[in-house]
Each structure stands twice: as C-alpha cells, then as structure tokens.
C-alpha cells in the first residue's frame, strides 16, 4: 500500500491505476528512465542544478497574490499561485527543465514532445534551446490553428513543429504520433511528456518536477495566513500536472483539495477506467472501448483521459473533482482581467470558474480562504477569445 502522493508501487501503480501499457520496444526506455530519475532525484547535485535553473532562468519562486477586489466581490478570500509569471508563461517549464536536465544526464541528444495549447511545446523548445537539444514537437492540426502564436514561438526557439492530422487532430492524437516516433528513435531521443500521464515513471516523475509549485505555495500561504493553511486548494486538471504539483504540497494538511476538469473532457467526472497512452486511468470511451474525443474551448484541457494518480486520488476521496463549462470559463477569464489586472490562461480559468460558482455555497462558505493555482497566463488565448466574443452576442468582454 502506497501512501497518498508518495512513490507508486514498483509496477508503477497508484492504487489500481497507472502501469506501463506500451509496445515491448518502449519498455527498455521506460525502465532506463525510471532508473535514471530515481538516481537523479536522490542526488543533491541534481536538485541543486534543477532548482538553480528554475530560480535564475525560470523566475522562481513565483509569488502568491492575494486578490483583494475579487475577494470582496465573492465574499471569500482568494489567493493565486502565480505560475503565469514563470518563464514561458506557465507551470510547464518546471517539468521541462527537470526532464531536459535528466535527458542530458542520460546522454540523450534530442527531445520530442506532444503539445495541446502549445505551452508544453514552447517550454520544451525553450529548454532545448537552453541546453542544446534538437527538438521536435507534435501538435494536433486543430490546435495548430487555435494556437498559431505558440507555433511561431516554438519555431522561433528552433524547434520543428509537426501538425498531426489523424483522429481528432488534438492533444490525444499528438500523443499517439509522438509515441509512434519514439518507437523508432528511442535510442538517442527522450520523450519529454507534458503531464502526469503516460507509462510509469512519467506520472510520478512529472509530479515530482511539479511538486515545487505546491511546496512553495504551502510555505507562502503559511506566511500570508499567519501559519494557517488555506481551507480549500483548487487547480485545473487536463492531464493533471499543475494540480498534482499543487496538491503534493497540501495533501498532508487539512485543506480540502479540488480539481476542476472541463465539462467536455471530464475524464474523472464522466469517464470509466480504461487504458490509453501507456496507463490505466479514467477515460472517456464508448461501450466498445473506443476513446471518445473531448470538447473544450481550452486546447490544454482538450483530452479524454487524466493522469492515473488523479484517478486514485478521486477513488480515495482525498480530492474532489468538479467540471466547468465553456461559458462560465469565459466569464471567469474576463472577471479576473477586470478585477485584478491578470489575464489568465483558459485552463486555470476553469479553476476560477468553479470558485466563482461555488463561492458562498457549502463548497466555499462565505469568509473561507481558497488558493487557486493560476497555471498560466492568457496571452496565448486572447486572439481565440476575441474571436469568440465577436461571434457570440451572448458573450461580451463586459460579461
């Protein structure tokens, strides 16, 4: 029996979830990665390098900001963990710096990655530029259009961006294509997976590389709250990496933990156990086991699965998962911009949407303190949101 948010079992399980469901040709690479990560993570010199790159290059620690205007409006106390202020504009940099340093230690010369919103692709291309890797990013053809600015950023950083036209042409298919390439190039290439999903050791390793979010936030909240913890800690969940990193810092406190999925891609809310992309977890699928397409305005959450540790956290009852719909997400996006002068990415706008909806109910009673991980900034999304406001008479920037 593993403790909550500790190490998975030797076969990569969190409860009944996780594992290593991959073609035999990738099993040696996963075993090699597991050994390399285990050794590096026990090595103080590796921690020093990881932390110093994130500090001197990545801009850590990111602050926790108290939202006075929004708090007054909602009747609860809202704190934001500001991953939008990290280099490249989201929490993705934490994981990528960790994996790139590990890949270098393993003697790899090339990074490949999938990306949805483009944030993980931009972060990977950034780390590749910094540490001298060749870099190729797979991105669904739909997302290439939705996130054109990020495609240009990746190319500017020296990465090759490959549009993926199979299946639903979004994140799920970008992962398929990256796995297909990895089967062929596994020797010199490291697959820099962007979230707490995939085969063992990725869900565990990516959570450890994101733990810094929760560790920092826990200390910062204690300082702000005179030694107390927030009543509730909230994060959005796509694959689940910003949430896992955040929760890891609070799982041993009394804080209630809440994950927010997109209504059109609620793997925990509406999925059933299944196996895709290397691990067993909750999955949106039909009665025959075909994976369904997720539908979310947010490219970074447009994924029918979820990391296996979240499936376990949900089953254990320690974390509660809710869903937020596109319209309330757009409202939250606008509200934070107007009240606090912070334009959030559409992904964490899901977490905010739930907070706004729940404020004053039993979930978030008046006067309680809630900390939300603002996983990224909204610059990448403004063109898409502007187009949506224009298209719809119901939605306007004035809410």
């Amino acid at each position, binding site marked *: 029996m593993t403790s909550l948010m500790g190490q998975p079992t030797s076969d990569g399980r969190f409860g009944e979830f996780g594992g290593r*469901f991959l*073609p035999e040709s990738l099993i040696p690479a996963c075993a090699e990665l597991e050994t390399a990560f285990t050794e590096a993570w026990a090595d103080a010199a590796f921690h020093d390098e990881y932390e110093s790159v994130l500090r001197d290059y990545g801009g850590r620690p990111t602050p926790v900001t108290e939202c006075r205007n929004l708090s007054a409006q909602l009747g609860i106390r809202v704190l934001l963990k500001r991953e939008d202020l990290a280099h490249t504009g989201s929490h993705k940099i934490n994981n990528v710096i960790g994996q790139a340093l590990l890949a270098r230690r393993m003697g790899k010369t090339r990074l490949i990655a999938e990306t949805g919103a483009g944030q993980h692709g931009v972060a990977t291309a950034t780390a590749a530029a910094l540490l001298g890797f060749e870099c190729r990013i797979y991105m669904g053809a739909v997302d290439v259009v939705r996130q054109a600015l990020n495609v240009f950023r990746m190319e500017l950083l020296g990465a090759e961006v490959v549009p993926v036209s199979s*299946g639903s042409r979004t994140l799920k298919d970008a992962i398929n294509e990256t796995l297909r390439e990895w089967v*062929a190039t596994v020797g010199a290439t490291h697959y820099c997976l962007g979230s707490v999903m995939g085969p063992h050791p990725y869900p565990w390793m990516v959570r450890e590389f994101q733990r810094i979010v929760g560790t920092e936030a826990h200390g910062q909240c204690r300082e702000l709250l005179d030694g107390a913890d927030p009543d509730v800690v909230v994060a959005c969940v796509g694959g689940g990496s910003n949430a896992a990193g955040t929760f890891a810092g609070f799982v041993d406190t009394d804080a209630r933990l809440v994950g927010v999925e997109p209504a059109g891609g609620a793997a925990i809310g509406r999925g059933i156990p299944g196996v895709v992309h290397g691990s067993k977890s909750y*999955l949106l699928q039909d009665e*025959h*086991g075909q*994976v369904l397409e997720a539908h979310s305005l947010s490219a970074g959450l447009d994924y029918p699965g979820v990391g296996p540790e979240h499936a376990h956290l949900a089953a254990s009852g320690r974390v509660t998962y809710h869903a937020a719909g596109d319209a309330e997400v757009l409202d939250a996006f606008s509200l934070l911009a107007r009240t606090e002068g912070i334009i959030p990415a559409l992904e964490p706008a899901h977490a905010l949407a739930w907070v706004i909806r729940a404020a004053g109910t039993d979930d978030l009673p008046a006067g309680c303190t809630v900390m939300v991980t603002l996983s990224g900034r909204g610059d990448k999304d403004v063109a898409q949101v502007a187009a949506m406001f224009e298209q719809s008479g119901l939605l306007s920037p004035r809410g």
Partner: protein
Amino acid sequence: MTPGPIEEALRARREAGRKLLVPYVTGGLNDDWVRVVEAVAAAGADAVEIGIPFSDPVMDGPVIQEASQQALAAGATPGSILADVARIDVDVPLVVMTYYNIVFRAGHRRFAQSLAEQGVSGAILPDLPLIELDGWGRAADEAGVETILLVAPNTPDGTLSEICSRSRGWVYGVAVMGVTGERTTLASTAAVLGRRLKAATDKPVLLGVGVGTPEQAAEATVDADGVIVGSALVRRLLEGVGPDGAADFVAALRAGLDRT
C-alpha cells in the same frame, strides 16, 4: 503448457519444410472483408490475423490507421467483427490483433470466451507487454486462446527468453524499431532478431512489421520460420483490389517463400 492448436498447426507445416505466412486484414474494412480473409487463406496463408480496429492505434503507421478509421466509420465494433468471423470458412487458424483497451473494456474473461466461441484461436495485443500480461494471460489460457507475444529488436536477452517461454502460438519478432508500414528494404535488425529468437526457442518464430514484398519475405525467412504481412496487403485493400487482388498478392508472397 502443452502447445495449442495454432502452435501445433504451424509446427507441423514448418516440419514439412514450409515457410510460414500470416497476412493481416483489418476487420470491417469494406463489405467484403470476410471474403478477403477466405481468399488469402486459400492463396497460401498459414494463419490469418484479423484486426479489430481501435481509435488510437499507437503501434500502427498511416496505412493501418486509415483502414482502422474507415472500418470504425463504417460502424465496425468488436462484436460485429466477431459475429462476422463466425461465418468465415477456412482451414487455417484465425488470430485477432487489437489494442488492450478493447479487451479491458469488455472484461478479460468475457473477451477471451467470445473469441473462443467465435472460432478465434489466438490474440495479439501490441500494447500489452509481458510485465502487464497477467490478468489477460490467465483468462486467455483458461479459454484456450493462445496469446502471441511480441519481441522488439531492443528487448534484452532475459526478457526475450521469458517472452519466448510465455508466448503461445508463435513468437512475433518485430523486425524493425518502428510502427507498422512498408519499408523499401528489410531492416538490418530483422536478421539479428530472427537469429536471437531461433537460438532461444523451438516455437515458430515469425517476423513482422516492415515485411511487405516477396523478396523481403524470402530474406526474412533466412533467419526465421515465417513472416507476417500487414500494411502492404491493407494498402492494396484500401486501393480497392478486393478479394481477388488480395489473393494474387498473397500468392506472390507464397511463391517468394516457396522459392527459398
């Protein structure tokens, strides 16, 4: 464990001096796919692999991806394909190839039993490696379904011999580091893997992935007992050759193997 019917049949043919040929056909691709299976069996196949299409086939290249999508779009389900399989009239073993979520969703025992009931002798699940085999492996053994395991060119020796002893039916050597699809030449990894497998096991050793011409089939069987041919056949089916054209192609592969 004593050999099952697939292994028995393939051993007998091998002992008779024959090189083994297993074509792959995507189930539910075109209305005449059942006749395609019968035609390739009659044209010289020693077993036929039937693909149950999955939405996210990570071990497959563009040709089998396209065939899978077409079959799914035409309404193919695991149930409809297995119902069609029951109508297939051939005297060689039939094997299904699919991805693990299809099996997991149905339930190990239920899926194994439905294969056995519809006359399917074996199963290949390319995303279920040895370390995750347990639950399905037991259910398949109980139902008398032979699970054919894959070995990759980079599989370490220890794992390779474990896979050889756990595999039923035959041992599937993945000839190239990569996904299914035609290649202009047979990968250099094929011969090396064929020799490693032959040294490790007396079970039939078949090489697949990147074997697509009579010449490549002949070359691959210098170091192995036979070949599996998928994308080269499925590409022709996507081009519309139908059962007769499929039979012609399989007959050409057969001739290439018989010349060696």
